[in-house]
């Protein structure tokens, strides 16, 4: 059974046995990576007021508390609305921008690209207080519109990168062929290019959704009043006291994220992708 340990594991003929420490180390790391995420799920079914694991008594009281609380429900709806709208706004704007930058021969491309990436590079706090400052002046503080706009610029870099990289490995000659056959540029894009970068577009949409849904700092500043987000309320709750309701909300968030990822796999796969 342990003869396996003496087999070579790499080009340099290191054996599995010699690498055992690496395997153990990697294994522990992977467990540590996944555990905290998953542990929230059973914790949320604990009956006790104090967070404990494993739960002594199982109950769904924290879920009931969550679903029956008007504040939490409002926050959830706000977050979902914001996330969907961000997805609907950021994806087309970003995909079209990525295409424009890819097909353009202007020297300004680099500058435009860097500019559109900055929301990812600038510390989020700065984006947050900047948006807060601007929104006070524009009068859109605590509105859904303001939230969606801010989340959109956060999501744009991701859309650009994902779509941009898909376009790079895409054969643009197909668009030329379509145009030579009689299709104007926009039609060629819609009928030929877009179906083939489907996976990237769907991934971009997913990323936009998650970016908005998960966003904390900006929401802290510009959401509230009639439009508080789930993350904002959760963060405040975390700072004040440890409410086990958060465990149930977290579980739901994990479920939502997983569903979105599965949907992305289902709708995004094209025959060309691995």
């Amino acid at each position, binding site marked *: 059974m342990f003869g396996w340990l003496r087999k070579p594991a790499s080009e340099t003929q290191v054996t599995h046995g010699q690498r055992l420490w690496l395997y153990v180390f990697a294994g522990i790391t992977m467990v540590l990576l996944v555990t905290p995420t998953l542990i929230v799920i059973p914790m949320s079914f604990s009956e006790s007021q104090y967070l404990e694991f494993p739960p002594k008594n199982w109950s769904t009281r924290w879920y009931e508390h969550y679903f029956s609380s008007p504040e939490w429900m409002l926050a959830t709806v706000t977050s979902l609305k914001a996330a969907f709208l961000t997805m609907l706004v950021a994806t087309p704007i970003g995909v079209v921008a990525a295409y424009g930058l890819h097909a353009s021969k202007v020297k300004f491309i680099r500058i435009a690209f860097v500019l*559109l990436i900055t929301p990812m590079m600038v510390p*989020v706090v*700065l984006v947050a207080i900047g948006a807060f400052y601007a929104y006070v002046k524009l009068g859109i503080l605590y509105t859904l519109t303001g939230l969606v706009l801010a989340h959109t610029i956060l999501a744009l870099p991701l859309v650009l990168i994902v779509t941009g990289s898909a376009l790079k490995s895409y054969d643009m000659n197909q668009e030329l062929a379509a145009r030579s056959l009689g299709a104007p540029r926009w039609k060629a894009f819609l009928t030929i290019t877009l179906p083939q970068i489907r996976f990237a577009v769907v991934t971009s949409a997913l990323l936009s959704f998650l970016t908005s849904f998960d966003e904390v700092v900006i929401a802290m500043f510009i959401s509230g009043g009639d439009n508080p987000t789930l993350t904002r309320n959760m963060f405040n709750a975390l700072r004040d006291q440890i409410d086990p309701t958060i465990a149930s909300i977290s579980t739901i968030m994990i479920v939502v994220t997983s569903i979105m990822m599965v949907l992305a796999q289902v709708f995004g796969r094209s025959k060309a992708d691995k």
Partner: protein
Amino acid sequence: MASADIYADGLRRDERLERLKLFGLSSPAILLVLVILVIPVGWLFFVSFIGADGQFSMENYERMITRKSYFRIFITTFKISLFATALCILIGYPLAYFMSQLPNRIANLCMITVLLPFWTSLLVRTYAWLVLLQKRGLVNDWAISLGLWDEPIKMVHNMTGTLIGMVHIMLPFLILPVYSAMKQIDRDLLKAASNLGASPRRAFWTVFFPLSTPGLFAGALMVFVLCLGFFVTPAVLGGGKVIMVSMKIVSNIELFVNWGAASALGVVLLTLTVLVLWIASRFLNLENIAGGGH
């Protein structure tokens, strides 16, 4: 019979129009970023030079040098970012290496353990650590039952907890670029090294490791930059004891409504971020970092 010259100006105009149209496709995005990010942050730059009395002053910046507490905040931020980055490298590199040596299908399965936390909400993960690291939390309970230590150790609301949480959040950001770089290393190079007489250890350190450094550097850089500006996890796991620059900015606005101070801190933070990125771009193609995050 038209002369060719007529079609020089017209062609020029056509070319310019087409270029404009293509570039125009990215204009909604550019407009958004300008209005919501560039202009407000630019404005904040000016605000940072306005003192408490509403007049132009350098007091916000002076405060950072003179007041000990501000100075300490910067030191703390740097310390934590450096430590977190170092820990990410120490923990993440071996895992990335391990995965790079596996056949693709198994490696993809292992990758799920990296991607799952990556996609899970930041708050959820931070909350999980908050619970795990408590005095009566899982870590303490298991450690004591395993005999690692006797008394529950305070691992949350301090530097330890903050570091643990941050490392956990940042690990995928390091692993993904390093892994991607490792996958691109030509296996034949290692065979060549072996054939030329290098021991496995020598082959690793003289061939494999140097070729993986661009990815490592990109990942480490990204982690470091993200740590500098990090807010959520230190705020929750630090319990107010561990104060980073981002938290000071937030408290300056939320508690003191001191836009001058907050802006100044923000400007400094941004400058540091840009500086680090610029230094790195001397050694690295910046677009690879952005692309390496996935």
